[in-house]
C-alpha cells in the first residue's frame, strides 16, 4: 500500500482539511443577455461528492466550466485549491489541469485523428512521459473500463457507451484530486451507467473530490450533497 502525496503539498497554496477545495462567492455569468448564472456561495470540501441537478439549459455545465477554469465568471470569485482562479498564471493553471483536475465533458470531445490511447494520455505529453510509458498507463486504465481492445482504434469507431467510458478514463488518467463530470450517465446503457457509478465510488473512496452535474437519480442518491440550479439560480437541496 503506497500513500499518495497529500493534496496540500501539490498545490501552490495550502488547503487544510477543514478548508474548501472549491469556493464560489457572488459569482455571475451572463450569456448573450438572456441567460445568467448567479451563485451567492458554494463550498465543496475535499473528498466530497457533490451533485448539481436541474433542467437542461439551467446552467449546470456553465457552473462546471467556471469551476474547471475553462470559462471565467463576469463577476465574483472562484477559489480553487485555496487560490482565486483569476490569479493563477497560465502555466500554473495548465499545471493544475494536468495534475489535479479530471474533466468529463458532456460531449466527450476526442481528437478524431488520434487513437483512443493517445486521446486518453494527451495530458501526459507535456510532462515528457515517454510513449511507451503513456501507452502502458493507457492500457492499465482501459483495462479497468474493459476497453483494452479499443485502445488503438479511432474514438469515432467507438459506441456511445464506449466513448463515455473512454472519456472517463481520460479524466482519471492523472488520478485527479477534483473530478468534474458533466452528465456522465446520459444517453448510455444501464451497464455503462453501473460501470461509471462504480468508478466514481471507487475514486471517492480513494479521496478524490467529485463534482457531478446530472439528472440521474441514482447518481444523486450517492452524492453527499446536492444542489439544484433553476434557470440560473443556485438553490441548495
Amino acid at each position, binding site marked *: *500500500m*503506497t*500513500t*499518495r502525496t*497529500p*493534496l496540500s503539498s501539490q498545490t501552490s497554496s495550502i488547503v487544510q*482539511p477543514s478548508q474548501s477545495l472549491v469556493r464560489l462567492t457572488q459569482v455571475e455569468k451572463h450569456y448573450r443577455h438572456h441567460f445568467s448564472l448567479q451563485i451567492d456561495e458554494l463550498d465543496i470540501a*475535499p*473528498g466530497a461528492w457533490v451533485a448539481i441537478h436541474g433542467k437542461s439549459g439551467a446552467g449546470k455545465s456553465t457552473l462546471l*466550466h467556471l469551476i*474547471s477554469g*475553462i*470559462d*471565467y465568471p463576469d463577476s465574483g470569485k472562484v477559489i480553487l485549491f485555496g487560490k482565486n482562479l483569476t490569479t493563477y498564471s*497560465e*502555466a500554473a*493553471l*495548465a*499545471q*493544475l*489541469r*494536468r*495534475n489535479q*483536475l479530471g*474533466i468529463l*465533458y458532456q460531449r466527450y*470531445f476526442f*481528437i*478524431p*485523428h*488520434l487513437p483512443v490511447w*493517445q486521446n486518453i494520455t*494527451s*495530458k501526459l*505529453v*507535456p*510532462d*515528457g*512521459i*515517454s*510513449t511507451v*510509458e503513456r501507452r*502502458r*498507463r*493507457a492500457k*492499465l*486504465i482501459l483495462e479497468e473500463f474493459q476497453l483494452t481492445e479499443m485502445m488503438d482504434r479511432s474514438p469515432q469507431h467507438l459506441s456511445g457507451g464506449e466513448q463515455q467510458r473512454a472519456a472517463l478514463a*481520460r479524466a*482519471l*488518467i*492523472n*488520478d485527479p*484530486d477534483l473530478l468534474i463530470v458533466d452528465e456522465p450517465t446520459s444517453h448510455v446503457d444501464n451497464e455503462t451507467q453501473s460501470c461509471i457509478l462504480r468508478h466514481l465510488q471507487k475514486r471517492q473512496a*480513494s*479521496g*478524490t473530490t467529485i463534482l457531478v452535474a446530472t439528472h440521474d437519480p441514482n447518481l444523486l442518491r450517492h452524492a453527499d450533497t446536492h444542489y439544484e440550479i433553476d434557470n440560473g439560480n443556485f438553490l441548495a437541496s
Partner: protein
Amino acid sequence: MTKSTPADHSNPTTPSSPGDKPGPWSRHFNLVCAAIENLTRNVLVYLIASVALITGLTLLLTTVAVSEGLKTQALRAVRSGADIYCTWDYFGRPGPFPRSEIETLSSIEGVTRTIPRIIGRTQVADELAIVVGIPLHALSDEKLQLSGALPVPNPDRPQVLIGYELARHLNLNVGDRLTLQNVSSIVFQVTGITKTTSSLWSAKAIVCDINEAVILFDEPNHVSDICLYTLTGAERRTQEIVQRTHERVKAQTQEQVRNYVTLGMTLREGVFSGFFILALVLAIGSFSVITYHGFAPRRREIALLKAEGWNTTEIIEMIAVENTFVSFLSTALSLILAIIWVRIFRAAMIAPVLIAELPLFPEMDIPAIFTPLCPVLATLFSLVVTMSGSIYTTWRTATAPVAAALQ
C-alpha cells in the same frame, strides 16, 4: 484530506520504474512526436493547405533557376566576347554602322583586332532565325561547343554554323544544305551545329561569313556593330579615345555590357516579385484558413489540449514543429516540381516572361541552374507562409476561453 491508492504497478499514474522519470528534453521530444503524429494523420488536410504554398514555391524556384541559368550564360558570352562594342548613334539609337569607319577604329592605339558584325533576322521555312555575319576567321578563337566543324570562307560553297534549336526544328544535320528566304540563290552547307549549352540566342542562329550576310541583307556599306579587341588593361583608355575621336560612335566596354546584362536580369526578376507577393498572401491566407482559423476541428483540438493542461507555449511549440516539417516537405516537393518543370516542360509559361520571343511552351532546352540558394530561399519563404498562417491563429485560439473554443 490525504488520498491514497491501493497499488503501485496497476495504478496508471505510477511510473513503471524509476528510470521512467522524464528527462529535461523529454517534453520537447514528445511535442515533436505529437507534431509528426498530427502530420501523418492529416496528410490530406496539409496537402490541400499547402497547394498555394507549393505553387508559389515552384514558381519561385523555377524563375530563380532559369534566371540564374540565363544570367550565367549571358555573362559567359560577354566574358568570351570583345573588349569594346561600338555602335553607330542614329537619332539616339543604335543604327547602321558605316563600314568606312572600321579603318579608323583599327588604327586607334591599343586596338589589336577589329571585327565587324551584321546581325539580322530572316525566315527559314516557317522558323524565324537570327543571321550573324562575321569574318569567319574570327570564329576560330571562339570557345564554342559544337558538333561538326567551324565554317570557313568558301566562295564556291558558303558554309554556316547553325544553332541546335534551329537544326532540331528543321531536321538539319552536319553536311546538309540550306537556303534562306532572303536570297534563295545562295546554298549554304551546314558544317557545325551548336550544342544546347551554348547561349540561348545562338540556338536559333545561323552564323555565316560577313560577305554572305552583306548579300543576304543587301547592305554593302553598313554593318550592325563593331567589336574591338584591345591590349590587356587598355579598354578604358581605348574607349575614351573612340568616344573623343568618333562623335557618333558609342563605345561600351565589356564591364559595362556585363553590368547591363546583370541589371536587365534583375529587372526581369523584379517582375516576378509581384507574383511572389501575391502568391505569399494567397498561401498565408489559404494555409491559415484550411489548417487553423477556419478549421473548426483544429480549433477544438487546440481548446481540448488547453483544457487537458497544455499551456499556450507547448501548443505553439507543437504547431511550430508541424509547420517546420510542412515547410521542409513543401520545399522538397517544390524543388522536385521545379526541376521537372524546367527539364521536362522546358519552364513553360515562366521562361517566356524572362526570354523575349519565346513561345509559352518552348521547344528548346532552357538554361537553368539550381544553386544552393534556391532551397534556402524556398525554405525561408515556406517558413514565413506556414508560421504566419498558423502561429497567430493558434495563439488566438489557445488564449481564448476554452469553453467557447470547444463549442
